[in-house]
């Protein structure tokens, strides 16, 4: 790891100013994606802006018909949040499948969403629920936020402050874990909120998380696993690596989508 200097601002504004002042500065949240890549010298920020002392960007709240989660809320806090479990259990269940207890103690939702790892879980929940990513500058719909593998619509001096998830009556997440890493080989998040039906896939797309319009259209007729029978996703453009070929990933998307819909209708 290369040397760096660090700052510990206490407000979002201070943190934004630090980012604006120091080109190539990086935000540090739970550190569970950033520190490993710094060790590998894949990220070499000369300046780190630690968000842990920033006030007002942590916690889970019910606001109107949405669950609003502060960017610095750790995975364990979302998993244990009664308000999330009561109102949007499909979302509360997502962090329980992330990493291990020590990772969940450290990692944050803001860090996960900003990182947009192609195998991460929260991006699927954001896209699958039609969340809004609230930043220090603006509100970005999930449909516009995830722009490709490890890339997002965030500007260099922009900080995620919270994420707002509309409450969907029917929603579920199905994750096929890589047995060693625990990351999603494929994960599918489905939801139905009135006529808004979403099927979001992580782990499979070569550009990161994506929606499956064909599945969504089929589910609009009837929101049931049966509606997806016979439908499949093309393997073209899906990831193929030592862990799984594109064909297998395409197959998993169908299986997991049907299972997720089956779970969702039981709620």
């Amino acid at each position, binding site marked *: 790891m290369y040397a760096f200097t660090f700052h510990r601002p206490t407000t979002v504004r201070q943190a934004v100013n630090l980012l604006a002042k120091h080109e190539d500065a990086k935000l540090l949240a739970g*550190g*569970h994606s950033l*520190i490993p890549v710094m060790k590998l010298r894949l990220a070499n920020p000369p300046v*780190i802006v630690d968000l842990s002392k920033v006030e007002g960007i942590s916690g889970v709240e019910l606001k109107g018909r949405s669950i609003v989660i502060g960017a610095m809320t750790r995975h364990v806090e979302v998993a244990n949040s009664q308000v999330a479990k009561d109102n949007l259990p499909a979302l509360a269940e997502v962090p329980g499948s992330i*990493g291990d207890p020590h990772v969940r103690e450290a990692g944050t939702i803001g860090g996960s969403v900003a990182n947009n790892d192609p195998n991460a879980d929260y991006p699927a929940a954001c896209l699958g629920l039609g969340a809004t990513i609230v930043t220090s500058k603006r509100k970005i719909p999930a449909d516009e936020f995830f722009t490709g593998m490890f890339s997002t619509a965030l500007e260099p001096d922009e900080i995620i402050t919270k994420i707002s998830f509309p409450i969907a009556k029917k929603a579920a997440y199905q994750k096929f874990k890589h047995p060693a890493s625990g990351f999603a080989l494929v994960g599918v998040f489905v939801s139905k909120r009135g006529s808004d039906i979403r099927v979001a896939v992580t782990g499979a797309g070569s550009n990161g998380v994506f929606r499956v319009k064909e599945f969504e259209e089929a589910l609009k007729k009837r929101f049931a696993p049966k509606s997806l029978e016979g439908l499949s996703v093309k393997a073209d453009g899906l990831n193929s690596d030592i862990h799984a070929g594109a064909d297998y990933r395409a197959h998993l998307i169908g299986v997991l989508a049907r299972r997720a819909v089956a779970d969702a209708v039981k709620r």
Partner: protein
Amino acid sequence: MTAVSMTVNGKAVTADVDSRTLLVQFLRENLRLTGTHVGCDTSQCGACVVHVDGKARKSCTMFAWQAEGANVTTIEGVANGATLHPMQEAFREHHGLQCGYCTPGMIMAAIDMVHRLGHELDDKTIRQELDGNLCRCTGYHNIVKAIAAGARAMK
């Protein structure tokens, strides 16, 4: 260089360290508390687990300065004088180790598990909760037995 101060195993410590210093390096190299191990150094294996303000954390994935002002407990801090902590005693009794390299992290993770989930832990829960602690020798069987017994002994 950056000044860090924290409490480690009940003792106040202060040092000047490079900002890159990981908590585990600080513990091992500055404080000579070499019970906390580095296994993979990629945030996977859990050999470096310590408690920071009472919660299990991988000390290889945290800078020393992030623990500024915190209360850190390492494997050296769990026994009561010459009397082993009940979880340490359970690992000894049930032979929950072979080479012993992962053991400090296993014990810190196990104590944290009891703090979070209570004293009656079934095998399935223990195995699930050990997701972040790898052992290359034992096949986990005796570790799981040791944790179940240690959890009860901690009552």
